[in-house]
Every structure is written in C-alpha cells, then in structure tokens.
C-alpha cells in the first residue's frame, strides 16, 4: 500500500504552513521528513494520517493494506499519548477493544506486541511508573498491535535522552528490517533520518515546500557497520548544508516574533 501526498498545501488562518507538497511513500519504504523548525513537518504528518484536513490537495492511499491490518496508517506520537489511567497492557489493547477480534485473539495480539517491545514484564505498570523510553515502547507496542501498513512517527525520540534514543533507534531498525511495514518519520535529527530512512524529504522553511529528496544508497542493515559511518556522515552533512541557512533564518524569525 502506497501513501501519496498530492499537492498538499495548508494554512492556519492567514499563516501559510505548507505549499504544494507532493511525494509518495511506497509500500515498505521508510521516508524521513526533515526541515527547519516550523516548516510544517508535523502538520504534514497529521494531514497524511487523516487527523487534519488540508487547505488544498489531499493525502491518498494506493493499493490494499495487508489483510490482517487493523489500522493501516498508525501514529507513534512524540509525547507518547498514553492513557494515564490504563496499565501498559490496557494501553496496548486500547485500539483493539472496538475491533472484531475476540478476547482470546486480542490477548494474543497484545502479548505479541508486548513481547516484541520487551514490555512483557511491565504489563501491569501504569505510565507514570515508567521511564520516557519505556513509555515510548508502549506507544510502539500499541502501534504494532494494530499491524499497520505504514507507521506515522512524529519525532518519536525527541523527548528522550540520548542513550534511550539510541536503544529505540535500534528497535526501529529491527522492526522495519523486513520491509513489511513502511514509515513516515518526521524528525529534526538528521542522524536519525539517514540512519532509518530509504529516502529523506527535505522541506524548506515556512511555508514548507519539498526542497530536495535524498535517497540513502544502502540498506538499513548495512548502515550499522563501521564502513557505513563515513558515508552516513557525508549524507548527514549534505542534508545539513541544505537546511542550515534556512534553519538560521527560521530561528531568527522565531526570535523576532
């Protein structure tokens, strides 16, 4: 199943946020979206996921989702968006409650999601009892439980410390390794973008336009090796050179405001 951004523009009141953004996320592909602060990355993701109606253009799906997918487009949120009154298990089960799955099947799905994210021993804990990294794991487990075709990740690691980020990045690499699931990964972290994505969409400063689309010419498995580090760093520098001037302008704009 492909996800298509088709000439998407958006404005909030009189403020143009996105301008004519178009690209396609092919089945199983991971696309990172980077750009200066305020360029509309998160707005674009909300539009792609159907949480926001664009002012112009539209988000489209092409092809059928996998048969067993309960929610083809599934978000992983920056702030985790966990229900604080529910245990880890209940949070993971939350999107399944209204589905046609019977209780046994639901439990099996939840158990599998908890196992894949290493949360089996924490199923009875409440979010307030967990670290930031563990909370995001719950968010990931909840997303996996509905067997998405495409994960929509809005800076999923930005609220975490660097060690936890590294561990969760390894989890993402592992989860996306088989290509069964695609992802749109919004981030301001260029290292994360080149580490995870097949392609990186670079947005200009507001109103966000597609400035460049950069392909990462190696598989995710190859990127873990020492040889790849130099190449990834070059790509990262290339991205930074694209963004740097506009990031400075965007920062200045925020200060002036």
């Amino acid at each position, binding site marked *: 199943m492909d996800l298509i951004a088709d000439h998407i523009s958006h404005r909030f009141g009189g403020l143009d946020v996105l301008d004519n953004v178009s690209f396609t996320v092919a089945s199983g592909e991971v696309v990172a979206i980077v750009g200066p602060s305020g360029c509309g990355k998160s707005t674009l993701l909300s539009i792609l996921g159907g949480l926001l109606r664009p002012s112009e253009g539209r988000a489209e799906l092409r092809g059928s989702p996998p048969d067993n997918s309960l929610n083809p487009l599934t978000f992983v*949120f920056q702030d985790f968006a966990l229900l*604080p009154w529910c245990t880890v298990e209940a949070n993971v089960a939350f999107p399944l409650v209204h589905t046609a799955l019977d209780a046994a099947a639901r439990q099996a799905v939840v158990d599998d999601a908890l196992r894949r994210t290493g949360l089996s021993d924490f199923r009875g804990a409440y979010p307030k009892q967990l670290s930031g990294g563990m909370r995001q794991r719950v968010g990931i487990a909840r997303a996996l439980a*509905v067997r998405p075709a495409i994960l929509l990740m809005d800076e999923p690691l930005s609220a975490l410390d660097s060690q936890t980020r590294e561990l969760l990045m390894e989890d993402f690499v592992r989860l996306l390794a088989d290509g069964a699931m695609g992802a749109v990964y919004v981030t301001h972290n260029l290292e994360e973008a080149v580490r995870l994505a097949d392609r990186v969409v670079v947005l200009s400063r507001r109103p966000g336009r597609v400035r460049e689309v950069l392909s990462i010419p190696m598989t995710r498995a190859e990127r873990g090796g020492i040889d790849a580090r130099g190449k990834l760093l070059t790509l990262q520098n290339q991205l930074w050179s694209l963004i740097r001037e506009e990031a400075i302008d965007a920062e200045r704009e925020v200060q002036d405001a």
Partner: protein
Amino acid sequence: MPSVRFKMLERAPSQDTQQDGSVPRPVAFRGAGFVPGGGRASGWIALVLVIALWQFAGSAGWVNPLFLPAPSAIAVAMYKLAVSGALWQHVSASVVRIGSGWLIGTVAGVIVGFAIGLSTLARGVGITFISALFPIPKIALLPLLILWLGIGEEPKIATIALGVFFSTAISVYSGVDAVPRNLIRMAQSFNVPFHAIVRRVIWPGALPSILAGFRITASVALLLVVSAEMIGAQFGIGAFVLQAGNLMQTDQLLAGVVILSLFGLAVGKAINVLEARLLHWR
C-alpha cells in the same frame, strides 16, 4: 609516584586547614519548608485542644452558657435529641432533600456539562445560559419555586438541584475541556468510535474535575438545604437550628451545627474514598 590527580583527591587530616588558614565547613542546608502536606495527628490534636479549652472556659464560668454552651452541654443536647427520636426526624428530612436535590442536579449537570464539552452548538447555547444564571443565589428563587411547585418538598429539592446543577455542569465541561487533545487525537487515529472515545478517554480524563466538582456541590447542597429549611420547613436541620435559635436553646442550636459539620465531614470522606478508588492512577 602517585599522580597529581590522585594527590588532589587525597584528603589528609592536615588538609582540613587550608594554606590560607581557612577551615572547611559544611554547606548550609537551605531547602527546608514549602512542602505541601501536613500531619494528620496535628489537626486532631489542635481540635481536641480547642474543644478542651472551650469546655474549660464553660466549666469555669468564663463564658455565659446562653451565648456559648460548653461542648458537654451540646453533647447532652444531642443525646437527648437522639433518644427522643427528634434527631432522626430532622436529619432524615434533610438527608432526603439533599440526596434527591443533589442527585437530580448532578445527573442533569453531568449530561449538560458533557453536551457543552462535546458539542459546539450546545456550548454556544449552554455557556450563555449558565453564565447568566450561575451567579444568581439559588435560594432567591425559592419563593418563585414555591409559587410554581407548591409548598411541599418539591421547591426545596428544586432549589438544591438548581444550585448543584450549575456547579456540576461547569466542572464537567471544564473537565472535558481539560482532557489532553493529544489523547483524543490518538484515539481517533486508531478509528476508535465516538462513543468509545467518550467512555474510555474523555470520561476518565474529566473525572478528576468532576469529583472536585462533587466536593463543591456537596457543600452547596448543604448550604441550600439549611437555607431552604429555614425559610419553609417544619422538619430538617435548618428548621431545627432556626427554631432552637428563636427559643434561645443555644445548646440545641449548636447540636444542629455539629450535625451539619459531621455531615459535611462524612461527605468529604466519601469523596476522598471515591477519589482514591477512581483516581488511583494519578
């Protein structure tokens, strides 16, 4: 030969006095106080001390018992009321009025509060009416309600219900508004149906505010029942207190006040239990 760094970490006794003659001293602790919370025991001890002082002042004849009877006299008055059955008669009349009025006001307030919280149209209409009607002291409406509903229990219950309704509606829609939008968007992103979002996200998210509202409406109900009973009732704690005051029976008057205080405490305790059970996740 030990490294310079190692030497720096060594703390020989001679180093207690530095070369310039100064002696190391501990950093003064400055982080005391400004911590919310207090000892339960201190509150009870203070209460007992005040009652003891009050009793002593009464027994020693420092205070005229007509104006302020001693706690023992109030206890005796309460005992006599209990034995005669009058206590039960007055308390049960008040409890029925409070219970009915609070329940009607709460149910209506929760429904209207949720409607305002969830519907743009209901918000537009409801907030206008609530803003206009909430500030009116509800007891001022009792004569009108008597005119409409007769002189029975209905106007008193309606007065309480009205007082409870507005506070409940406000606390409910404020609670709904306070539910983090990201949780609602999360549920929508999983295609969770509207009714399930209300039941599983908005209701538990608004519950802290709703329970805080219950605490306020319980006080409002108590205030209104006493006022309403003072204006037009034969039985009830309010009527009893007024009657005792008219007859200068201050021991009985204060017995009524103590009963009201105990009632308020009991309701507060019940809400505490409810909060502990329903909001344990906080």
